[in-house]
């Protein structure tokens, strides 16, 4: 039985491997929670977050047949970083170009679809710890389905 987490990892790896996206969000791509900047080692201020929002499996007689996952894939840029507004917009567009209807190859699975179901909201978020800080967010909820 293939490892479902490999789908998560493949999604992160696909985004990380794109040089254009990494110019816009150089601190990296993280699963669920941002870590230290992959460039500076300091606080990440321009990055992409991938979160599994929901997942369900479809069974056929005798086995699991389909893994159906919804991911939030979102660029987050601190408002004080250079070109945050424009870069956030460009990063969201780049994420969509990389994912919408694009195959996501994972060992042990057959890719079925990757498509956006909704844009993510809000586009501007006030930081919980420091209300003077704004985060610009761009991305969407992407449906990713693989069969076994």
């Amino acid at each position, binding site marked *: 039985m293939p490892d479902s987490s490999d789908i998560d990892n493949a999604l992160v790896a696909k985004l990380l491997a794109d040089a254009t996206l990494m110019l816009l969000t150089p601190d990296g791509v993280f699963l669920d929670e941002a870590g230290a900047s992959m460039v500076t080692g300091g606080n990440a201020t321009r990055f992409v977050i991938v979160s599994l929002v929901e997942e369900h499996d479809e069974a*056929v*007689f*005798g086995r699991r047949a389909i893994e159906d996952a919804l991911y939030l894939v979102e660029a987050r840029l601190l408002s004080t970083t250079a070109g945050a507004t424009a870069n956030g917009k460009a990063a969201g567009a780049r994420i969509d170009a990389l994912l919408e209807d694009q195959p996501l190859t994972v060992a042990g699975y057959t890719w079925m679809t990757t498509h956006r179901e909704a844009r993510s909201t809000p586009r501007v978020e006030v930081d919980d710890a420091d209300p003077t800080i704004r985060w610009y967010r761009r991305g969407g909820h992407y*449906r990713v389905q693989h069969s076994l």
Partner: protein
Amino acid sequence: MIKSGRNGSVMYDPAGVTPVALIARTSWKASFKTDYIDVTCFGDVNKVKVPGLPDIAGSGDGFWDSTNVVLFAAASATTPGKLKLVPNTTEATFFASGLAYLSADIDVPVSGAPGVSFSWVAAGAFVWAP
């Protein structure tokens, strides 16, 4: 013994001899309902009926799988194939089987996997084993 339906199986052979599993099936149903003939007579205190013949038919669901399109070939067949329905393959000696005609439907939603449903009617003696 009560067992899960997870290991059910739908098997079919268009030649009517040795059924093999149809893949990506998710459910099957079979009805063995018998029609009853009204033979109520003058003086009976209630209606009286005698059994006629069972009308055996059923249906099922699953997913479209391009590696196995037997179901759609069966739907246009002019001769019946052998259908075998197994509630649980871990008790493979318990099954219903017989010659049957099949019909098929496909449902392709934009947001999910294409579904394939089928219905069947007996075309010969359809019996339970054991």
